[in-house]
């Protein structure tokens, strides 16, 4: 028997329906649909994936397989602030690894972990396309560029005070 799942709001579900109608083929709406679901729910839990599958009229296996391919889809809960530090070549040449160490110390967590209060998750990511202003990190939707340890401290303090 199917489980009843009600994790997505009607608003998101109707937005997904609109997206499906927008494309020449409805399946093209899958990535944007997953992004909307993640925005609402914070991460793509099995229940969310199942519900997206239902609205998209796709199999849960298909939706799960797509969700697991893309790094921006979180399949585990993440903190309120998702800190993603680029450690690719240009950022690395200008000290990105030191920033990661600095963040680990300041937050008291390792890469891939979330602070116990659920505020910050720390990740290393591939090139963010901001190599001219390296080193760079992305926190949620915002880029922070030309970073130094002092700047990182300021940013953390500002986020903590929010």
């Amino acid at each position: 028997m199917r489980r009843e799942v009600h994790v997505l709001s009607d608003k998101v579900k109707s937005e997904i329906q609109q997206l499906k109608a927008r494309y020449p083929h409805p399946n093209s709406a899958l990535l944007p649909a997953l992004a909307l679901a993640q925005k609402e729910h914070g991460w793509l839990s099995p229940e969310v994936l199942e519900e997206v599958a239902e609205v998209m009229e796709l199999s849960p296996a298909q939706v799960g397989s797509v969700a697991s391919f893309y790094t921006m889809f979180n399949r585990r809960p993440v903190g309120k602030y998702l800190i993603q530090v680029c450690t690719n070549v240009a950022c690395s040449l200008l000290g990105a690894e030191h920033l990661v160490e600095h963040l680990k110390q300041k937050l008291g967590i390792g890469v891939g972990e979330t602070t116990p209060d659920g505020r910050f998750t720390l990740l290393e990511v591939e090139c963010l396309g901001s190599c001219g202003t390296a080193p760079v990190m992305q926190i949620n939707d915002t880029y922070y560029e030309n970073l130094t340890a002092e700047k990182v401290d300021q940013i953390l303090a500002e986020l903590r005070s929010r």
Partner: protein
Amino acid sequence: MAEPILLRNVGVPDSHTIEVYMQRGGYQALPKALKEYEPAALVDLVKRSGLRGRGGAGFPAGVKWSFLPKGVYPRYLVCNADEGEPGTFKDRVLIEHDPHGLIEGIIISCYACEVNTAFIYIRGEYEFGARRLEQAVQEAYAHGFLGKNILGSGFNLDLIVHRGAGAYICGEETGLLTSLEGDRGHPKLKPPFPASEGLYRKPTVINNVETLFNVPFIVERGAEWYTSMGTEKSPGLKLFCISGHVNKPGVYELPLATPLRTLIYDYAGGPLEGKPIKAIIPGGSSTPMITPENLDVPLDYESLAAIGTMLGSGAVIVIGEGTCIVRTVERLAEFYRHESCGKCIPCREGTDWLYKILHRIEHGAGREEDLPLLLDICSNIGGKSFCPLGDAALGPVRSSIAHFRDEYLQHIRDKRCPYQD
């Protein structure tokens, strides 16, 4: 620096709005294209300009457009704004500062290719750019530059901004299309090429942001203007992104065939802290690295090929003395291993193996046999992987062994990285 063309709106307040874009002469090429040209004549104009694709491979845009099979509709155009090649950030500058320049280029290109639905596939990380594009698309609809019967010409076009979700392989054109169809971004076998069978199995044009961005200027100023810059085979202007150990990293607009030395010293302010340059990656992370002996190479497709590397996306990464090459290559190998889509064995297994060997060399556990082994693995990936991602992973490995073999041997012999305290 000469008067900027591609970057003319960058740094101008509110350049992303349609008002400022139009005040500065924007949306003038569009009516000209619609009034003065039949679609086929526009394809011919772009062919005569010699404009080459700016996404990495450098294939002539007009020639690609002319491959669309006659009489098959619908056709699609997809602007590749995935920009995932490490070192590359030029498309982001255009998108954020001049979204209408790109949109105008897309509209004209769609008219030329008889396309009525177009997409901009933008990497998911570019949230700010995507929002600016979406806003600009709405403005363009409101002004009648998109939608039905554009400027009374009878030409219709819908433009959809589509965001990716983090996967470098989605920059590869067939992977991009698979992703746009709502699937994992797995590449497809070619042929058929997208021009004959692409999105939803219909004829599809895929071009890079910078490529499409050039089109309005070619319409306004003509093919001869374009071919008067650069070389015969590499005409026009190019955006170069320069990063790493230089004083003024950033995006610079230069005619093709400008010497690498000019870019590094005259534009990017020379090496950081005056440290000698050790190596240069000339065209994005997959392009084989070169050494300062080649500083006078002209930055164009042929000259870089002649010295065994590539212009690629025009992303120059400068590596100063004091940087461990093995560590740098290990990091790049980690990137390719992470981004391999897993569809084919040579790339999936090979990139992982390359990384593991580089990792052990860098961490003091390298063996004498590791260098021939690395090269052997490279030759088992090269030309044998399903898509060019496999080949892309080899550029840093092979070139670094060619130029810095002693540094590798030193790591192996001393069982440690000489650059770590």
